């Protein structure tokens, strides 16, 4: 009797659990670390639809009166329970266990420490170049608020380097020192965190402090573009450095 009731309620339970996980991920802001902005509204829509489907299912159907099968038969209650649990447990566990940022181990595998020539600045539109040009054209006597990606884009163009080398900048990013080279990086995300790729600049100068890997830092310093082995490496000579909060959009979308 209990098994029959479970079999009936399992689809509604699974669909409403997925909807709840989706809504909680949106409400907590964790979705900003998982999906690019375009996909977030799809998740909200899916959550609402799954709730509606759960309600419709309970309204339109009733428990079947079929004769019970042995628990471990292919359609037995225990087998079914196991299959439904496979839909419930991984997604709930992942929602609880997924961290705010990738660890150094994964960053290394995704090219954080790759040679400067190994990765190009990904391009989605011309916005990146436009932003970089706007930064270069801004008042040289003012502190220029820039993203890590602006400095990388500038580093690919000799004319932009000429116009920006030595400018005072304000930049926010994640700290990494796992290879002995101080870096400030941001993750670029196309669709979801699984495809995210780190893009980094080097840090020199006054970086004293007990900074931990994957800690968010706010830095003021001077932009430099030295050439190493024929490749320009964007870097910031740090003048002041302090810990800061994770921004609303921890990943950058190109």
């Amino acid at each position, binding site marked *: 009797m209990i098994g029959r009731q479970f079999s009936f309620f399992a689809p509604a339970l699974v669909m409403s659990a997925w909807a709840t996980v989706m809504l909680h991920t949106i409400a907590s802001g964790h979705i900003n670390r*998982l999906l690019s902005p375009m*996909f977030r509204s799809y998740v909200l829509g899916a959550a609402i639809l799954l709730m509606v489907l759960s309600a419709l299912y309970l309204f339109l159907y*009733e428990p079947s009166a079929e004769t019970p099968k042995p628990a471990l038969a292919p*359609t037995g209650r225990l087998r079914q329970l196991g299959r439904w649990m496979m839909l419930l447990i991984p997604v709930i566990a992942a929602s609880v266990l997924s961290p705010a940022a*990738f660890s150094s181990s994964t960053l290394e595998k995704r090219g954080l420490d790759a040679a400067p020539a190994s990765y*190009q600045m990904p391009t989605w539109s011309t916005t990146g170049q436009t932003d970089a040009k706007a930064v270069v054209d801004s008042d040289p006597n003012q502190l220029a608020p820039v993203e890590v990606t602006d400095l990388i884009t500038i580093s690919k163009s000799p004319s932009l380097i000429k116009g920006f080398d030595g400018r005072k900048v304000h930049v926010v990013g994640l700290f990494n020192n796992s290879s002995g080279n101080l870096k400030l990086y941001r993750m670029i995300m196309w669709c979801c965190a699984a495809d995210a790729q780190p893009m980094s600049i080097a840090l020199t100068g006054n970086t004293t402090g007990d900074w931990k890997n994957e800690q968010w830092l706010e830095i003021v310093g001077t932009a430099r573009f030295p050439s190493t082995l024929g490749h320009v490496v964007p870097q910031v000579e740090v003048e002041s450095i302090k810990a800061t909060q994770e921004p609303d959009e921890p990943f950058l979308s190109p």
Partner: protein
Amino acid sequence: MFFAAAFDLPSAPASAGIAWPDVALSFFAIVLEGAPFLLLGAIVSGLVDVFLPANTIKNWLPKSKTQGIFAALGAGLIFPLCECGAMPIVQRLIRKGVPPAVATTYMLAAPALNPLAMFSTYLAFRNQDPWLMIVLRFGFSLAVLIFLGFWLIKLRPDQMLRAETITGSPRPAQELSPNPGLVLTPRPGLSLGGLQQFTGAVIRDFTGVLLFLVIGAAAAALFSTGFNRNLLAPIGHDPFLGPLAGILLAQLLCLCSTTDAFIIAAFVPFSIPAKIAFLVAGPLIDLKLYWLYRSAFQPRFVHGLWIRALAATFLLTLLYSMHP
């Protein structure tokens, strides 16, 4: 040795093992990205079930199987679908009488020939000869799809499909699906037959394929997080190993066809043939799609599809790599 280093097994530095929280982050992102499209596919499948009679669909289709394959390739261009959303729709079309070879060709063509995928290829490579990349991607994808289509029309439905996909009714003995015993008993006294049929179809399709998305996402998260993609860089420009590296990377990263070009365009160590191999092989099959295909097709068929798709991609890109 290479395998151990690539996956950071014990011979690699201890500090660089698989980071399980990162696997959880990737897994969660992949399922959250895929589930809405899977649900959309299930809803379209439900609408097809209720509103499209089997005879109507049969009347639309060419009588010859060969023409059907080319019609499926054309449909892949005109009605683009993402990989996750296609699965429930294709299963429904087969149950409605569309020949499995035609429906399967459409399933493979929709993400591979997708106009959005070509547009994103243009954007991603616009500083690296975009038209050459589009022509190569589209041309090689089309060639591989035609090759696969002519293989598919030689197969009987029972050689391709799981029994449940053919009949539409659960066949418990072969089920991995979570709902083999999901018996939908309409509540008596409700005169909502159409809504009941639609809701039942959506729930059965969504929960049936969702399990495979979960398994595929777990595999994709594990490999995309654990695999050190920089290890492929030294062979990315090799005329023979480059295409192999591109195919291997596509199998492990499991990217959508509309965004894969941006990832590979930024990967400088790969030659053009390696990048094309990545862009052609990925939308046809990868670790995630392998499991999604298992929701409708027999394992032996999926293995055959996997081998043929990758072998054809490799041969074409190798030939291009060798050309003077």
